[in-house]
């Protein structure tokens, strides 16, 4: 049996809010297999984004372990964690988080700046990533010259250009209209099915969640139940 790509073991996390300690995650354990597409759902404040952040290495738990591809990232220092993220994680944010002063090409190139690739090699990777998201003809455009859906596709290209181990998406369709959301979700499905990318996605949107292979529900900082989605339930959800 192959070990999971992501293994969260007995993780606790709390935050200080105005002098009070607020518990966000309580003794969470979760596995994500390589090549999985997992949706994290739950009401606001349930801790799903916090769990995503811990797995992505941009936050640390109070207790517990988070292993990604065999690396216990809870033991890494800040500098090591940044270096690890550069090679292991691709981020897709709700509001795209593109650099407004860089073109689409330059935005996608950002993760590659941290590698030892030559300028020519970086160009090849970026052009391939933009072609994959069907934006090869817009690479010299700035984010302000692109629609919301196009910006999110640029963000997806940026997330995959360095061939990361894991892609994390926090409400990737939260700021998009229905048509653009469908385009983005189809693209993510293709990344998973055709390129074998492991994707962990936080979403409120059932229509987005059913694109995943499995959904995990969080309630009040605890994993309530899991759901492996059958083809029938996916079709029904898409029709609604």
């Amino acid at each position, binding site marked *: 049996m192959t070990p999971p790509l992501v293994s969260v073991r007995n993780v606790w996390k709390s935050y200080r809010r105005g002098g009070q300690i607020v518990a966000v995650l309580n003794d969470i354990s979760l596995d994500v297999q390589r090549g999985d597409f997992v949706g994290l759902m739950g009401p606001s404040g349930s801790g799903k984004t916090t769990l995503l*952040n811990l797995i*992505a290495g*941009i*936050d640390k738990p109070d207790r517990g372990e988070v292993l990604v591809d065999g690396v216990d990232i809870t033991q890494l220092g*800040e*500098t090591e964690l*940044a*270096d*690890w*993220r*550069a*090679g292991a994680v691709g*981020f897709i*944010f709700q*509001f795209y*988080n593109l*650099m*407004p*002063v*860089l073109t689409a090409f*330059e935005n996608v*190139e*950002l*993760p590659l*700046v*941290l590698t030892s690739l030559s300028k020519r090699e970086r160009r090849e990777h970026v052009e391939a990533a933009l072609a994959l998201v069907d934006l090869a003809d817009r690479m010299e455009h700035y984010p302000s010259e692109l629609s919301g859906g196009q910006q999110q596709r640029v963000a997806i290209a*940026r997330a995959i250009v360095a061939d990361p181990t894991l892609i994390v998406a926090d409400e990737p369709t939260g700021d998009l209209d229905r048509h653009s959301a469908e385009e983005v979700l189809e693209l993510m499905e293709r990344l998973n099915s055709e390129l074998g990318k492991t994707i962990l996605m936080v979403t409120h949107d059932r229509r987005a969640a059913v694109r995943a292979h499995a959904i995990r529900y969080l309630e009040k900082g605890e994993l309530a139940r899991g759901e492996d989605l059958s083809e029938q339930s996916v079709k029904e959800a898409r029709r609604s």
Partner: protein
Amino acid sequence: MQFLKLIWRGALRHKLRTGLTVTGLVVAILSFGLLQTIVDAWYAGANAAAPNRLVTRNAVSLVFPMPINYREKIRAVPGVQAVAAANWFGGTYRDTTMRNFFPQFAVDAVSYFAMYPEYRIDPDAFHAFLRDRKGVVVGRKLADTHGFRVGDPIPLKGTIFPGDWEFTVRAIYDPGESTTDTSAMFFHFDYLNETLKRRSPRRADRVGVFVVAIDDVSRAAEVSHAIDELFRNSTAETLTETERAFQIGFAKQTEAIVVAIRLVSFVVIAIILAVMANTMAMTARERTAEYATLKAIGFQPAYVAGLILGESLAIACIGAALGIALTFPIGEWFSAQMGTLFPVFEVSQGTVALQVVCALIVGLAAAALPMRRAAKVRIVDGLRAIG
């Protein structure tokens, strides 16, 4: 390259904000440079002083003269090479406005000009001056300011020495060094003295200062002391000091003004520092989410801090370059407006260096807090920030 792109494009992102900040920097650096140059001009006389020249005056006050017979006694002191009498004349040209003010001195022409090799005079013109009792030598700056040419008359109304005085320009002296004052007029001491003998005999044969050339600068203190000892317990005791100390003595009389000018010049820098700090703080705050994204992607906090520092220094350098470039033409214009009030008004290399240093300090200090905050903010908090 990406790093420099982010810095440069970041600086131009809010063109109005950056433009206004740069304008503020230009004004501050320019003002600083002009104020420092005014301070330098204040001490120009001291800077132009030669180490082998002493000045002997009445120990009580410069206002009181000394007997002319002191000249030969001073000449006899070991270590003295030459002595020249010099009197401040203080006449009025046309009117009493600052624009028409210029210094006038009655001097022992031959010995005096021999002691000031930095006054470059055409030999023929100098001989013409020596031959004409009423002849004057004027400095190039003075000649340019009033359009004096050789042969022109200069009528003066005496104040210290009342009456109408007629002079004729016989020579124009040029500066031998950048610090040489060319705003003065020199005429024959003998002409002044002979006229006084007719008009006001009790004031004749009196000298304001003696300029003394010595042959060994290391003996300046010793020779000064020897000269003063000659006239101890006389009716006009003397105080002899180096020319530099004598000039500084003048500057010290208005030292409070100089201190105030220096203070204002640094206050100007402090004000623009506050403006820049506000600009950089606003800029960094607006981009909190972007910096958090860069850190999430894998860029180190130092990279993010470097972006802020780079942008701050870029703005500071642009403002400094323009401010320094403008200091020279505006300094020239200012000097022309002041006439001969500041005989030497030159933007020095030291002033330019100070301008550069101030701009760099502004750029660094303005970025310090925003850099620290951006580097330290947690990624999750930064991603939640609204710009």
